[in-house]
């Protein structure tokens, strides 16, 4: 039935004139890499040759210097910026002793044969740490003219570290990332707001990822024949060599990085994401309507999925495949089809967890555990969450290539937001992470849990290595941006938000946007200036919190005193007025005056809806611009107020405290009794056990 419906739908599409596809088909290829590398598994070393062609993207600048990232030098000794900043610990992983990593450029020549090696010097543009060798510069004998190109031949040796911070080895498992001399990004004037052209080539920091230009890769990798491997792109060739090695050739265009992995123990699982089988016609139709696009524009492509799984994780194979498909489906539907033919999901070896949870173009690493095979750990959706999140980086990092050093939120934050939406689409809200024994936890819960009134001393928009303390980088780059986007969605609506995100992706696919580009797009599509919002929550660091500071409802008291009227002077005593009020209450004819004070506790202001529930009546909703410190809502109605609630639909995800958003007039003991009973049970069990030892 489903396939028949698909046939009918796509047959119908064929006769509907399609709009021009706004998705860019190709990147502006600035770089071309042709690399041949061989792995020495005993020494954990790579020997490589690299032919790099770089095109000067500027139409005005002549470039006389090239800059390269030599990321592996971050692991060279204890004096590097990376090790100093991280203290040898990152993402719960510790750097192994005496397992240093480094990269040596042993030869650097132009294609014409001019030797540049002697002129290669290490520079430290970020912190002046002379011991850091993660960025190298070379002055060219002849500058590259605007639009011109230069081809370099580089020979290098790379020593892989024991897995730490995304790359390295663990026994015979290899995850080879950031492993070759990679040219920085030359940003001409006008690009990303630059006022003059120059290199953007940062040192490798503990809290930073990467930034590179788009281009094409052709990489020949030689490894022992007993190894199973996977890499960025499509395997286009392989040959067996004498001496028990095999050379694999991988090629991929329109990417800005290349990673690969090898391990003799991998179990290879293959699957296909089918654009017709894995997405229903109804889902296509719903998303097309949401985005205001034609069905043809939202149509996806088939993708070959390869999961390289650890043997002990074999029972989780389908979970990874399903998670990858969920990513391909929902990210593709919302933001634009995944343009590559392949997706490789790598499950790092035990002890190689430092390589897990990482993204490279068409190639991601998962995060799993043998325990997840079994009850009750199989109830945790962490494996799916990691795979979907890392897949999401294909959209926010690989295709929309923001500068992760300077504006990490544009990939991590956008992706955390998108991951939460995808997880919600797959598992349902409030239970995306865990649902077990009456305890459930959703992605949005996790994002909100990390928000705290004390987190106000940094900003989303700052260099990734500048957070104080450094650990707050995660909150400002992942969770807070997700909450910022979620709150924006709550304000402008799902449809407008979906269109903004779609358009942003389309405009900046295979390009390098900055935050201002996103802000401008929001203003453009909504027709409003959201500077007030982004200034507060992206450029600023303050906290958003609204509460109901008081709510009262009481009968309108009959007046007392001396009154002059047509019938003469009349005196109403306090007692008589009181009785009159009481009688009115009994007769249910009383009017009630209600007063609700809504307060802005945080510095951030945001328009909010306030709901009022009067006895026996539907909710009354009113809006407030949220600017003043307090706003008092007053009513005189024949019903008593039951409760009032700010942001009753809980759309303002940035609000650090939802509990204080509402107030009841009458106590409800049940929630505290319910939790107290559980606390009592826990304490009683422990106390009784200890007391009867």
């Amino acid at each position, binding site marked *: 039935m489903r396939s028949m419906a698909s046939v009918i739908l796509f047959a119908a599409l064929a006769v509907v004139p399609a709009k021009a596809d706004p998705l860019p088909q190709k990147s502006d290829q600035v770089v071309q890499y042709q690399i041949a590398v061989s792995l020495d598994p005993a020494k954990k070393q790579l020997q490589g040759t690299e032919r790099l062609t770089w095109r000067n993207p500027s139409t005005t600048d002549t470039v006389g210097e090239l800059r390269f990232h030599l990321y592996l030098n971050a692991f060279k000794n204890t004096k590097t910026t990376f090790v100093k900043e991280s203290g040898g610990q990152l993402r719960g992983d510790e750097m192994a002793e005496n397992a240093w990593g480094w990269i040596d450029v042993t030869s650097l020549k132009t294609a014409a044969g001019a030797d540049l090696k002697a002129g290669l010097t290490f520079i430290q543009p970020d912190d002046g740490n002379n011991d850091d060798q993660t960025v190298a510069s070379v002055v060219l004998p002849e500058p590259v003219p605007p639009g011109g190109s230069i081809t370099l031949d580089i020979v290098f040796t790379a020593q892989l570290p024991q897995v730490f911070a995304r790359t390295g080895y663990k026994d015979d498992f290899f995850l080879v990332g950031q492993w070759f001399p990679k040219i920085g990004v030359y940003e001409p004037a006008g690009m990303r707001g630059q006022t003059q052209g120059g290199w953007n080539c940062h040192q490798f920091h503990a809290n930073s990822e990467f930034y590179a230009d788009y281009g094409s890769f052709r990489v020949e990798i030689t490894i022992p024949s007993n190894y199973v491997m996977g890499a960025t792109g499509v395997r286009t060739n392989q040959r067996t060599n004498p001496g028990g090695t095999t050379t694999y050739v991988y090629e991929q265009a329109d990417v800005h990085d290349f990673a690969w992995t090898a391990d003799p123990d991998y179990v290879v699982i293959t699957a296909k994401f089918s654009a017709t089988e894995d997405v229903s016609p109804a889902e296509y139709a719903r998303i097309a309507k949401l985005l205001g696009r034609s069905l043809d524009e939202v149509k996806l492509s088939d993708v070959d999925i390869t999961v390289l799984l650890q043997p002990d994780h074999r029972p989780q194979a389908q979970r990874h495949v399903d998670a990858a498909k969920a990513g391909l489906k929902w990210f593709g539907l919302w933001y634009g089809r995944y343009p590559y033919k392949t997706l490789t999901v790598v499950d790092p070896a035990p002890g190689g967890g430092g390589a897990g949870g990482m993204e490279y173009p068409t190639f991601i690493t998962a995060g799993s555990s043998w325990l997840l095979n079994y009850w009750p750990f199989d109830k945790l959706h962490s494996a799916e969450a990691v795979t979907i999140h890392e897949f999401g980086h294909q959209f926010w990092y690989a295709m929309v290539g923001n500068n992760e050093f300077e504006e990490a939120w544009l990939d991590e934050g956008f992706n955390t937001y998108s991951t939460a939406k995808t997880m919600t689409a797959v598992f349902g809200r409030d239970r995306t992470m865990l649902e077990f024994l*009456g305890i459930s936890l959703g992605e949005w*819960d996790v994002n909100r849990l990390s928000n705290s009134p004390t987190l106000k001393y940094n900003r989303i928009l700052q260099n990734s290595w500048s957070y104080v303390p450094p650990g707050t980088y995660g909150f400002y780059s992942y969770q807070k941006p997700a909450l910022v986007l979620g709150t924006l969605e709550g304000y402008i609506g799902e449809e407008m938000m979906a269109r903004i995100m779609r358009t942003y992706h389309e405009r900046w696919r295979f390009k390098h946007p900055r935050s201002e580009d996103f802000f401008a797009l929001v203003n453009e599509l909504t027709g409003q200036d959201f500077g007030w919002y982004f200034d507060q929550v992206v450029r600023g660091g303050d906290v958003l919190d609204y509460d109901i500071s008081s709510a009262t409802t009481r009968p309108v008291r009959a007046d007392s005193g001396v009154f002059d009227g047509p019938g003469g002077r009349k005196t109403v005593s306090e007692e008589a007025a009181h009785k009159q009020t009481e009688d009115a209450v009994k007769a249910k004819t009383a009017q009630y005056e209600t007063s609700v004070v809504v307060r802005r506790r945080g510095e951030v202001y945001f328009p909010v809806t306030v709901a009022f529930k009067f006895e026996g009546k539907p909710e009354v909703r009113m809006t407030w611009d949220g600017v003043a410190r307090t706003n008092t809502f007053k009513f005189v109605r024949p019903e008593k107020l039951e409760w009032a609630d700010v942001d009753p639909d809980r759309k303002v995800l940035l609000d650090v405290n939802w*509990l204080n958003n509402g107030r009841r007039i009458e106590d409800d003991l049940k929630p505290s*009794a*319910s939790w107290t009973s559980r606390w*009592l049970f826990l*304490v009683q069990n422990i*106390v009784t056990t200890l*007391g009867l030892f």
Partner: protein
Amino acid sequence: MLASIGHGLRAAGTQRKLVLLLWAWYGLLSFVPVFPAFVWLSSGLNMRPASATALQRFDFGLLSELSNYDQSGVFGLLVVAAMAAMVVALVSSTFVMGGVLEVLGSEDEPRMFMHRFSRGCGHFFWRFVRLALIAGISLAIVVGIVAAAVGAMTAPMGKTEWEPGWYLAGLITVVSIAIAAAYFLLGLDYARIRVARDGSRGMFKAYVASLGFVARHALPAYGLGLTFVAALAGVALLYLAYETNSPAAATTGAIVLLLLFQQIVVIARVFARVGLIGAERHYFALASPAATPAPAVVTVTTADVPPPV
């Protein structure tokens, strides 16, 4: 062993007052951290419509916001109060166990239950304190040695590429520690029984003799303990099944029912412990008969004192 289990269950079933007294005492002690928690939760939740989610599920966000909103560190104080109650419970166990053994050993005595219980509590208190100290110190030392030794032996498993080995290494260490700890705790149980039966004064000697007893009768000694632990685990599973599958405790009736079920579980826990002690007494009497059967406590009353000559 079966006879001892049966005897233990009968003893616990007969001594309903004892079970209820212990339940009530530790229930009361639990109120030290629970009552302030109720006050705190009431002040934070009762007026808040958002707290309705607390009736549907355990909401981490709600708890976090409650702590954030309060900003007074009450949550930390509650944890400290709970730990204080636990320490008091641990200390009171030396007091209470004397009463338990005295009540179980004087079933035929016509005196009031509370009299016998109090008599046992007071009579054995200092001796049981000394026993607890000896057992606690030896347990800590041996468990430390076992943890270090087994940890060192299983460490290579935790470094291999065989991931289940990591967890197996941890499991072996935990099980080894549990067996060692159980050995010393069972030794403590049998030492108390020995002291109550024989009126021993040398606590170190009594403890060592009891460790020897447990070693010689390891199967029944561990078997009795495991039987009662398994029974308790069964009750716990029943509770979890109720908690998971029953409708959310969203109404007053449902909350009362939940509270009732919880208290049944706690009473079952006390019942099982009293039953285990009864079973251990029975087994100890069979396996190690007293040389001269004597009442645990010789009560001297004025009627027994000969008139002055």
